[in-house]
Structure formats: C-alpha cells, structure tokens
C-alpha cells in the first residue's frame, strides 16, 4: 500500500492539513502536496482508467509527463477536465473525480474492452466498420465517440478570468533547476536582462532530491533575487518558442489557490534575444508486461514522492532498471526505512558506485534479468522475473506492492525543436540531444536557443550544473556581453556504469507479453501495436505514430516517444536516428484556451468603435447593426413599431420631409502632396487631378484585377490636397492599399496619406427641408448658386466649425456636414432640436439602403462582390478615356472582361409586386456539362420600396440592358418561382430633379 511516512517531506507543511474530495470521498493531505502525492498518501493507488481498454491505472510520474492521473476537477463554472494530479497543487476544498469509467472507478464496464483487445490491434478501425455503409454514421461512430474522450465537457461559460502580459528580455531562462539558476546567474552577471521561469512552485528542480545542492540553490535564488535586472517567476511554464525570439509562457496564478475575480492564468508573451532552455530530462519507463499496473512507477517519481512529500508509494518496492540512476531510488527508499526486496538489472555485473552502495546495504540484485510480468490487477502484488535474453517464462516471483522502473533519461529538447532546431542521437545514453550546430535561427540567421544542463544531455548533477552556467554565459556572449567562464561548487560525480538500452523486456518477449506491454499508457498503445504497424508498412515514425496513436495523448509522448521509436527502428532493422523523431509542437504541456483568449471576451472581444453620436442613438431606441468594428443605427423603432415599420417610416419621412443620418463611419482619408492628383488618377478609374478646389467628384476604385473594390466622393481641398471618402468598411483597407502602392511601387511620389475617419463626425441632412434646417441654424449661404450639387464649402453653421458637402446618396436634397468629432454630439443635438418643427427624424442604414436602391445607386458589397467591373454596372461614365493608366485598366482589357456576354446591371420588378428573394438566380433553359441548372442573372439587392409600395430589386443579368421588359424566372429556396421584369435600375426621380434643387 502507499502511505504517508511519519516524518520528513521537504515540501509539505504538516501544520497545515488540507482536506479534499476524490470521487466524493473526503481525504486529507498537507499544504505543499500535489493532488497526486495526497492521493498516494491516502493509499489511493487506482486513479483512473485508460482510453481504449479502460485498464485500471495509477500515478506513474511526478510531473508534467504524467499520462494516467487525469482528473475532472472542480464544479459548475469552475469545472475543468483532464487536470494532471501530479502538477495540481493541493488546496483546501479541492474536488477531484477520476475520468473515463462507468459506473465507477473500481467497477468499470468499459474494462470489458480488454477481453476484446486481441481484435483491437493497431489500426483495427481502419480495417473494419466498412460495411454496411450507413453503419459508420449511425452505429459505429456514435459508439466510438461515446467511449472515447477523457474528461467530461465543461458546461456553460467560464467563471474565471485570464490576462496577457508582455515581457522583453535579453535572456530568457526556461527552467529553475540548478542548471537554469546557474544559467540565469551567469547571464545576469554579464549584464544581461534576465527572466528565469519555473513551471513548478519551487526552485531547484531535481537537484534537491537527487544531489546535495540545497545550499547552493538557496544562495543562487537569493543572489538572483537581489539583482536589479533579473526577474524570477515560479508557476510559469515555457509553452512554446516561435520565430523571431517570441516565446509564450503560461503562468498558473490561481490554480493552487482559487479566487474568483482574480485572473486564473496569465499568458506571457516574451520577446527574448536569447533563450536558454534548462528544462531537465524525463525518465523513461521500461517495456515489460504489466508495466501499466497501479503501483508501477518511474523510479525518479518514487523518490520525489518520498523526499518531497514523505509519501511511500509502497512498502516493498522492486526496482527494474537498465542503468545506475535507478539505484538512487533504492538508496532513498532504504534511507526512509522502506524495503527493497530485489533489484532486477538488465545488465550483467553493474559496477557503478550507486549499485555498489545498494549491494553493500544488503539489497539483492538479479543482474542480467528482466521483469517478465507484474502480478495484481488494481494494484501490484508481485513481480515475475526471467533472464534478460528469455522470452518471458518466469523463473521466480517476488512479492511486492510497488515497482520502480528506470529506463534511462530523455532530455527535454522541446524548446530547441519548436522552432526548427535539430537533434543528435547519443548512443551511450540512448537519447536525443540538441545539435549545437543546427539551432533555431532568429531574424538575422543566428541561433537564438541553446540548452543547458540535463536538457543538453548533461544528466549528472554536477555536469548539469556546470553546463547550465556555460549556456548562460554563452547566451550573454551572443549578445555581445563579456561573460567569464562561470564557476560554482560541484560535488564529486558518481562513477557510473553505462546504461544498457533495453527496448523490450525480456529481449525475446513472447507475443502474449508484447501485447501486454504498454508504450503509451494513456492511449493504450502496446509494444505489439508498434511492431504490427512496422510490419504493415507504416515505416515512417509519423505513420506509426498516427496509425497506433502512440505519443498523441495529453502527455504528447513525453514517456512513450523514445521507447516507441526504438521498437519501431528495431522492427525495421534501422538505427534510431535513421528512423528519426516526430516533431515537437507547442505547447510543452497543454495550456488553457481561456489563457490564450485572455481578456478579449464578451464586450471586450473586439474593440467597439462608437461614433460621437453613439449615446444619442442608444437613448433614442436604436436598433444596432454591427458593421466591422463599428456599431451603426439600423433603424430607430418607436414604441409599438416593428423594425421594418420603422425603416419604412424613415424612408418616407426622408423623401417627404427631413431625415438625419449619422454618416461618421464613412472613411475619410486626406491625400496630400504635389503628386496627390497624379496618385489619385492611378487609384481611381476617373480623372481626379482635374477636379477644382471646392468641388467633389464621385469615383470608383478597382484592384489590379480590374474588379471594383471601393467607391466614394473625393473633395479637392486645395491645389495639393484631396479628401477621399471611402465606404465605411473600406476606410482601413483602402488606406492600407494606398500605402501599399506608395511604399512599394511609387515610393518616389510626393504624397502623404492620413486616415482622418475618426477626426470628424459626419451628419447627412437629407430631404426637401434640408436647406431650410441649415438656414435656420445660419452662418453660411446654402443656396444652389453658392453651394451647388457636388460642391463643398467650409464655414460656420450655427456656431459650429463645419465642412459641408452637397452630395446625395438618396436622391434627395442633401448636405453632408462634417464637424470635429468632439462637436459631433452637440451639433447633432442642435439639428434634432431645430429640425423638430420641420418633421426631422433620424434614419438608419436600412433606410439608407432603400433610398439608394430606389435611385439605382450601386452599393459596394451588394452590387459588387469582387468579380464585378465598373463596366458591368453601366458606370462607363466614371471611367476616364483620357488616362493612359489606372489600377485595373489593363485587367479590364482582358478577353473575359470585354466579353459582350457579361452579366450587367438592371432593375428588376416582380410581376406580382412581391419582394424578390435576396441572392436568387434567374434560370436559363437547360443544364451545363456538369448537370447544373443554367443561369442568366442574379439579384444583387432587393427591398420593399415604401415610396413605390412594391418590391424593387437590382440585379446582374446576361446582356441585361438590351433586354428591357423581358420577364425572368427566379426560383426561391422555398419552392416558389418569382417572375420579374427587367427594368431601368433607377426607380425614382429618374431626372434627378429632387437632389439638384
């Protein structure tokens, strides 16, 4: 049984008990425990069920590599699935439930899957469930989905909040073990600005458990803390390394002490010139039958629990090893008064110091032996042994309640690999380590990541410490700083006997054993699965990984990758480096999606742009429409009125009396400089350079492919300056488009552009009484003579500084008045007040659309969709014949663009007066070569016109302008066919009498 020892426990505080529940049962631990250590301390060996076979599983590791001990944690809006018990700090009231079983952890029906295991060989689902065809969707897939998945799905919104944080440093050290601390110290001493981050809650990493570095660690931490340019952070994990020295860090602020209202996680966005990864190494399991039984644990994890938490995973522990390091666990267990009845060492005559010490303390070592099998189901009861060369016939069985396994160590090279660093294979230690000659490269082509300590393959404590210091000094030197060779106390290294790579235990294990030997615990990938994959031709590591799901679990192969790779290369009779490794992808361990989203949620999901009159709209019953980041009034329904009724009222009132539109979102770009005219001539299809100051001109903008991209009114302010109005949605990208041309192509033209969109509030005063209202406010001469259609003027209106443009998008008499943004609300208020007796009503975007459609004005995004050229819309008049060039001109001369059979703009009127469905197509006789109905046109805008009291539409129709009066069929998606006549697109006031008054 596992239990708490009476004394000791480096990290726990026995004066601070913590109670928590596991599967509803209340248990006790201490401050400083992890959930895993507390569970083990309470003799909870069985902690979960595996993915596929629902095998009983126990804690196997003590850190981020844990594949088994995953919990449903918390409740309600604080619930979270798949929490690793080994990295979850215990707090009072913690609620954990084990996953993936029914009805209970102890009695799980799903475990019946084990009986069918022989049929569930690697890739079995690719080979079956093929017939009958419908069965996959209706039967097999639902079944597989239900039995797959680990934790429960959270329900509802997240009760926690998250934040982002930015840091810029010279040197980022990932990992706060002895190597990392030395690296940080070396870099900081050389004058670098250093950030050192550690994923766990304590400094020192493995050293305090494995070596005697305690005093040096304390001293280093204190010294670093006192340095001005050093930042130190615990519970902050390096998550991913990206191009250009960008690194993400994942800080768990509140997981160990939940507090609603305070951020739970903080995502760090770090820009580091140099990254030193001192991320240590992870011990590998050994592959023997039954290595997944609760009670079988990594040897290093076992001593972690004993030393750090005073928790003994077993009373009688057998060590299975292929290297010297495992003996540390033996000595540690003995030191804590625990029994070690046997060591099974794959090597013959292991002669290292550690083995000798164990032997001297009376431990029996069976050298040249292997674990042949593990007894027990929900916990270990014994271990079978056989000669290492055997096939598994046990020669002996030893009773025990725990098994420690030590298969050698793999450096954590993730941060070297994320951004393209290459790895080398170390034959002696059987691990991949960073190839110093092929680091990830920064923006200037120099390496920016290096590894130190165990992460660099320096596995011995003393060696690791030194290597860390060196890496720190090298990072500083890479920044041009002078860094001396760091020195530091180093204990005598132990004389070690070499490791013996053992990838299958025993070496000739029979099929039964190979099919009960786990490589990937969480995903239930067995040794036999990888061998089968290789036999079936899935020879690349990536194929094997994907075919068997090896390394694809939540631990991302931290325990299984090298073991699996070795089995694969064995099966292929190739060397391990030849077979290669799979790519390491960020993040290092899973990070919450909440932390990635950060503060950007709900109201702050994206910036909200408000016009100066936003509050007035809000106070006056507005119905909003999101337009990009803007909110625009769609309509202003009055009480008892539907939105649609409001729109119709607004249209009529604008036509008959007076409307007010908030047009502030309209893009306003100032284009200025001696070459401004020339520049605009290139951007627009029409001539802008000939425009006179004081005048406006409507213009069309096309992209290089000739397609319409924007339209709007350009006003010439003076000889060198133009104010370009764009569509509301176009302001940013048109400005970027201008800059693109100016910076990349016409960099020698003397033109500046400034986006002034938010500098001005713009209000359209529209309708027969528009002039009357402005005259009432006074200050300028608004007569047609002084301010004719398409003219503009600057001056005061009612005491406000304004610029007035006489332009119209409604066909009515219309003045668009721009005032400085800060005056917008006051000016609007004034207009509303003075306009009351003239029948003034504000109108929204939908009324705007109808007004323009009644007049046959096109709308970018409605009549255009990225495939339409001005010629399609009958806008030839806006295309200059005189200019030798403009953007899109050459494109518009291509054969398809000049094809007479293009679809062209027309008006459409249903015979019945009904409104045509939006986006409907007009059918033509027959079917095309792909058996699709032929078409001859489509609806681009369609509305009910309150003015004409019938449906009106615009559309693009094959040879449309030549087919006036013809009737087309538009099938709706409701089964109805709409018949509509081709008419002139200008439905209202064809002569333009109203706007010109």
């Amino acid at each position, binding site marked *: 049984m596992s239990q708490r020892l009476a004394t000791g426990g480096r990290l726990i505080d026995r004066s601070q008990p913590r109670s928590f529940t596991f599967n509803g049962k209340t248990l006790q631990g201490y401050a400083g425990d992890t959930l895993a250590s507390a569970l083990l301390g309470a003799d909870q060996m069985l902690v979960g069920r595996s993915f596929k076979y629902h095998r009983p599983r126990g804690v196997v590791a003590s850190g981020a590599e844990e594949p088994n001990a995953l919990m449903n944690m918390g409740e309600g809006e604080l619930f979270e699935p798949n929490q690793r018990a080994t990295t979850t700090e215990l707090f009072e009231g913690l609620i954990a439930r084990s996953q993936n079983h029914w009805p209970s952890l102890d009695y799980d029906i799903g475990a019946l899957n084990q009986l069918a295991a022989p049929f569930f060989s690697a890739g079995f689902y690719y080979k079956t469930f093929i017939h009958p065809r419908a069965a996959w969707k209706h039967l097999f897939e639902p079944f597989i989905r239900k039995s797959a998945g680990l934790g429960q799905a959270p329900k509802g919104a997240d009760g926690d909040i998250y934040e982002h944080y930015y840091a810029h440093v010279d040197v980022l050290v990932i990992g706060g073990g002895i190597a990392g601390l030395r690296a940080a110290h070396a870099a900081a001493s050389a004058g670098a600005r250093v950030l050192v981050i550690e994923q766990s809650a304590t400094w020192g990493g493995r050293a305090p458990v494995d070596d005697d570095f305690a005093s040096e660690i304390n001293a280093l931490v204190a010294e670093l803390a006192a340095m001005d340019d050093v930042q130190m952070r615990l519970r902050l994990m390096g998550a991913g390394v990206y191009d250009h020295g960008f690194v993400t860090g994942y800080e768990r602020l509140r997981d160990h002490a939940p507090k609603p209202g305070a951020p739970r996680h903080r995502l760090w966005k770090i820009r580091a010139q140099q990254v030193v990864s001192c991320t240590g190494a992870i011990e590998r399991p050994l592959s023997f039958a039954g290595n997944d039984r609760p009670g079988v644990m990594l040897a290093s994890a076992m001593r972690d629990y004993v030393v750090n938490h005073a928790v003994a995973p077993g009373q009688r522990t057998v060590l299975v090893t292929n290297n010297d390091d495992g003996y540390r666990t033996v000595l540690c267990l003995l030191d804590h008064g625990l029994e070690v009845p046997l060591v099974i060492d794959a090597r013959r005559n292991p002669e290292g110091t550690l083995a000798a010490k164990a032997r001297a303390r009376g431990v029996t070592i069976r050298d040249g032996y292997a674990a042949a099998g593990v007894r027990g189901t929900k916990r270990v009861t014994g271990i079978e042994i056989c000669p290492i060369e055997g096939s598994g016939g046990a020669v002996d069985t030893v009773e025990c309640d725990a098994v420690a396994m030590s298969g050698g160590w793999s450096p954590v090279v993730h941060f070297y690999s994320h951004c393209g660093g290459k790895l080398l294979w170390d034959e002696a230690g059987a691990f991949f380590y960073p190839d110093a000659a092929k680091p990830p490269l920064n923006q200037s082509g120099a390496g920016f990541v290096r590894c130190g300590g165990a992460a660099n393959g320096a596995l011995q404590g003393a060696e690791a410490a030194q290597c860390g210091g060196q890496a720190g000094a090298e990072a500083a030197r890479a920044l041009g700083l002078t860094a001396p060779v760091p020195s530091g106390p180093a204990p005598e290294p132990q004389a070690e006997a070499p490791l013996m790579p053992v990838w299958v235990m025993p070496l000739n294990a029979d099929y039964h054993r190979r099919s009960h030997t786990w490589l990937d615990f969480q995903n239930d990938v067995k040794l036999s699965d990888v061998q089968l994959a290789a036999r079936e031709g899935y020879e690349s590591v990536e194929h094997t990984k994907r075919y068997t799901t090896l390394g694809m679990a939540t631990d991302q192969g931290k325990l299984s990758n090298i073991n699996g790779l070795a089995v694969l290369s064995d099966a292929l009779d190739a060397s391990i480096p030849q077979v290669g490794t799979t790519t390491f992808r960020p993040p290092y361990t899973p990070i919450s*999606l909440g932390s990635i989203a950060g503060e950007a949620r709900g109201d702050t999901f994206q910036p909200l742009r408000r016009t100066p009159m936003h509050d007035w709209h809000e106070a006056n019953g507005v119905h909003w429409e999101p337009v990009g980041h803007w909110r625009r009034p769609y309509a202003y329904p009055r009480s008892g009125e539907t939105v649609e009724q409001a729109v119709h009222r607004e249209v009529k009132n604008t036509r008959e009396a007076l409307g007010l539109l908030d047009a502030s979102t309209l893009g306003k770009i100032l284009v200025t400089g001696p070459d401004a005219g020339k520049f605009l001539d290139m951007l627009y299809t029409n001539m802008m350079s000939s425009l006179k100051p004081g005048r406006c001109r409507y213009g069309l903008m096309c992209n290089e492919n000739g397609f319409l991209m924007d339209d709007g009114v350009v006003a010439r302010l003076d000889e060198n300056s133009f104010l370009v109005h764009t569509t509301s949605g176009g302001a940013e990208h048109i400005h970027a488009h201008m800059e693109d041309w100016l910076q990349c192509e016409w960099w020698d033209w003397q033109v500046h552009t400034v986006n002034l969109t938010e500098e001005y509030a713009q209000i359209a005063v529209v309708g027969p009484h528009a002039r009357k209202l402005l005259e009432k406010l006074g200050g300028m001469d608004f007569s047609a003579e002084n301010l004719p259609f398409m003219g503009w003027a600057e001056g005061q209106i009612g005491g406000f500084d304004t610029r007035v443009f006489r332009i119209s998008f409604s066909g009515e008499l219309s003045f668009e008045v721009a005032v400085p943004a800060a005056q917008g609300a006051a000016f609007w208020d004034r207009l509303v007040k003075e306009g009351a007796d003239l029948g003034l009503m504000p109108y929204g975007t939908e009324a705007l659309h109808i007004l323009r459609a009644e007049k046959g004005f096109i709308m970018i995004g409605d009549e255009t969709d990225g495939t339409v050229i001005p010629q399609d819309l009958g806008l030839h008049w806006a295309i200059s014949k005189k200019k030798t060039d403009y953007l899109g001109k050459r494109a518009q001369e291509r054969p398809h663009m000049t094809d007479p059979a293009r679809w062209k703009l027309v008006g459409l009127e249903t015979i019945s007066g009904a409104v045509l469905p939006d986006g409907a197509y007009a059918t033509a006789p027959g079917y095309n070569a792909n058996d699709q109905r032929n078409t001859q046109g489509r609806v681009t805008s369609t509305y009910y016109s309150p003015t004409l009291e019938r449906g009106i539409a615009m559309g693009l129709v094959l040879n449309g302008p030549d087919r006036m009066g013809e009737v087309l069929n538009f099938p709706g998606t409701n089964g109805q066919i709409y018949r509509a006549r081709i008419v002139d697109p200008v439905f209202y006031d064809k002569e333009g009498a109203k706007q010109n008054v």
Partner: protein
Amino acid sequence: MRRYSAFAIAKEALRHNTGWQKAWRSPAPRKKYDVVIVGAGGHGLATAYHLGKNHGITNVAVVEKGWLGGGNTGRNTTIIRSNYLQDPSAAIYEKARSLYETMSQDLNYNVMFSPRGVIMLAQTHHEVRGYQRTAHANALQGVDTRWISPAEVKKLVPIINLDGPRYPVLGGLWQARGGTARHDAVAWGYARACSAMGMDIIQQCEVTGIDSAEGKVTGVQTTKGQIACDKLAMVVAGNSGLLAEMAGFRLPLETVPLQALVSEPIKPCMDVVVMANTVHGYMSQSDKGEMVIGGGTDGHNGYTQRGSFHHVEETVRALVETFPMISRLKMLRQWGGNVDVTGDRSPILSKTPLGNCFINCGWGTGGFKAIPGSGWAMAELVAKGEPGPLTAEFGLNRFREGRFIDESVAAGVAH
C-alpha cells in the same frame, strides 16, 4: 491485396496478427513510367488511383519527398462540404463529396467519412445575404444545402452562444451531408489501393529537376536518381511554385502558413462542424474527443510549416466567444501547413506551358474535401491530355483572361 473485414480481424487476432500484409510496397524507382506524379498527398494519390481505376493506366509512380500524406493532407482539419458558390467549384466539390460517401467501400479502407453536417454561421447582415445567395445557387447546382434559423443552429449545437454581445448569430448555412473524414486514412487507403494496382509509391524521394526535350517533359531528377516518364503530374500543394520553376514557368499563387490546433480530448459535446467566418474560426470534435480548431491563414509567405502565435490567439479568441465552455479546455497541440493560395481562392487543374506536364494545385486552405473529385478530374486531364467538364474552368489561362472563379465572395476563408 488481402481484403480488410471484421472477419479478417478475427482471424488475425487468433494468430497474433502475423498474417497482415504490408499496406503498400516501398519499391525502388524503376527507370521509366507512363505517368509520374509528384507528391503523395491526397490529391496526388487520388489522381493515381483514378488513372488506374477510370483509365486503366497503372504504370504509374507517385514520388514523395517525405512520407506519404505528410503534407497538408496529414495536417488539415478535414472539413468536407460542397456548398460553394460558383458553378465550377460546386461541381468539383460536390463530385468529391459524393465520392467520399463510398470511399471506405471503394478502397476497402475505413476512412471514417462522417457526414455529421456542417454549419457556416452568419453573424452580419452581409453574411446572411451572402449565404442566402449561396443557398439559391446550390439549389440550382444540385447541392443539398439550407439556410437555418438561430434556433435551429442552437438545436444542432447546444454549446454555442447565440447572443454574444458583438456578433450575435443570425442564422447559418447548413449542409447536412457535409462532415469530416480521417485524413491519414484517406492517404493510406489510396496508397494501399494504388500499390495493389501495381503502382509504385516512392517515399523519401524528392524531385529536384524536370527534364524536357522539344518542349515536352521527358522525366524527373530525384534524390533517388533520374526517372523517365511520358507524362508528368505535379501535385505538390505549397511547393507548387518551386516545381513550376523547375519546369520553367511561374504560377499565380502564394504559399502561406495555415495553422490548426486541438484541445485535449473530452466526452462528446458537439456533433456537427461549425464555421464562424466573421470572427475567423471553426471547430469540430474528433472521434477521439479532441476539439479540432482552425482559422485563417497567416499574413506572410513561408515554407516553414509553422505560423505565428498571434494567429492562434485570434482563432482561439473567436471560438471562446462562440463556444464559451471551451475556455476551460486546454490546447494540446498546434501545428501548421504550407498552403498554396491563388488570387481567386480556386484551384488550378491545368495543362502547363511544358508539353505533357500537368498541374494540380491552388487548393489552398480547403482542398481536403476535394481530394476524390480532384483525383477523378485530374486523372481524366492527364489520361486524355485535355480538360473534361470538371476541370474546364480551372485552367491556368483563366488568370490571363480574367475569368476568375472567385470563392472569397461567399466567405472570407474557404475551408
């Protein structure tokens, strides 16, 4: 080829799975083939398969620089739908979708095509109108798709938040016959079937040059030596620009990173695929339980097969807003591919300026769904030397003539 079945599995289980054959052979290249296909992604393999199956051409080699299926085919988020806007697109994607329905049976390999349905959310008026147009177009194209109300969306996707303060869901375009498939299995199933027809799939063999004489292709230079051929098909997605350069012409496309990510696996909570183009994100749940997430392309050109973090952030933000419960899930893994994006977001299946050399590329962010249809159509083009109805509109000359097939019209991202 020994057939896969439940019976075969049972039989093999009893003899310790010793009787399974190799799914495909790994031969050394021969001196000459009738057709060499460069790129053993889904499109290259499907082209080979249909050359054999539809046209009886089996003296074919598929040459792959890495491992088969290791390009975008093995990196994509596997959304399959055919409700595209323009006629030529709808035709080829619908052909592909319908072939997916029987692919497991055709290949005797379970590719796990799962017609669970795909919703494209409309979150602005503009989008509503765009999808209504698509719905009208699809009805005439014979593509089964339907506009659905917010209430129907909620019924299909209980975890969705319809009333986000910024972009409330106004409805959606629903294709019930769309869904997902297992990407690796598609590549593997084709590879196995091609190998069984006697075709050679040559992995770890990079094409480094193209040989020609008198304006016609004669073979390829590879890292495994020269291979002669009568016809050459280049099907290399993000590497198309490089291959075209070897053949002496240029392509109107750019290669950009496209990223995806998965969460840790959880029990089933979402049965359909949801795409939210206004906020730039989409999500489905794999059979294993992972939430599979993707978004738009990165803003720079590149061949690194990795992208920048801020793009991942943007995507996740969009989806947390759409599905608030995922905030408490964790990102397990993120990765990227190199996608080949044309100016009109539509593919190129075409003859090239080099005689007997054909190209299939430009599938960009959304070509997984097209694999079987593209293979079918490309095989016809290669076998006959002239485009058939499915490829007629997708030729290279459309760029010169301005005859674009613009799909960005309907949605910003064409997954």
